[in-house]
């Protein structure tokens, strides 16, 4: 089963453009954690995201795309990064999340990834190329 661990750092919603992690010690502990995921053979991928103030949102009022540049004043929670892992159970995914060297302001959301076989047969038929686009083990 694949799970995404979504890192939600409170306060990141108002971070200025160009804000980067600066604490070497914290970076080291996070990298050690990443390596422990990799050594256990569960890590599929991980990434960090630049602040929302450097991003954009596209909505579709009246089916027409409308672009709004960040930051997003109404956002209370934003994504700071993610890990994609492959584990045997939801409990194992949660166990890994609890081992993360997170800070006081951080929450990790653990969410299962949809596999093709989770879809009904007629939906699987039109989504047959989906696996080639997914972050699966090849």
């Amino acid at each position, binding site marked *: 089963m694949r799970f995404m661990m979504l890192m939600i750092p409170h306060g990141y919603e108002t971070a200025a453009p160009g804000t980067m992690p600066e604490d070497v010690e914290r970076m080291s502990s996070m990298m050690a954690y*990443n390596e422990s995921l990799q050594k256990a053979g569960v890590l599929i991928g991980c990434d960090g995201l630049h602040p929302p103030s450097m991003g954009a949102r596209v909505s579709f009022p009246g089916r027409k795309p409308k672009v709004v540049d960040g930051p997003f004043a109404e956002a209370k*929670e934003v994504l700071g990064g993610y890990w994609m892992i492959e584990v045997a159970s939801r409990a194992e995914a949660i166990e890994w999340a609890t081992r993360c060297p997170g800070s006081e302001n951080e929450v990790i959301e653990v969410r299962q990834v949809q596999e093709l076989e989770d879809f009904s047969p*007629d939906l699987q038929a*039109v989504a047959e190329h989906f696996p080639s*686009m997914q972050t699966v083990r090849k």
Partner: protein
Amino acid sequence: MRFMILVKANKDSEAGVMPSTEVLTAMGKFNEELVKAGVLLAGEGLHPSSKGARVRCEGAKRTVIDGPFAETKELLAGFWLLQVKSKEEAIEWIKRSPFQEGEIEIRQVFEATDFGDAMTPELLAQEDRLRAGTEKRTGAGS
């Protein structure tokens, strides 16, 4: 530059309602365009938050909260990871997506070179080992 395209959850996705064949067909076509243009690195959908959990970090303490997260207005339902030349190009792609409603967030992904001094040579070497391992697993970068 890599960009993560975040698709927000709505009432249907949170209720576990799967998309219609029509929507999936349109989305499949869009995905194929992304593949043909060589910009798609990955795309995934997530099960509803009712099947998920949250882990809150407070010092050494870890609190596990089971989903759903009803109080949260902005839950993730899925994402694409795109390799493009600019934010504008990423936005252009999303404008062409078959979405009829909702809001899609576009966020640039950190590359190791973005970190500057915080990324010591030792950490950079560790990062390289990590990338080499995950690329082997996902087939990305090949």
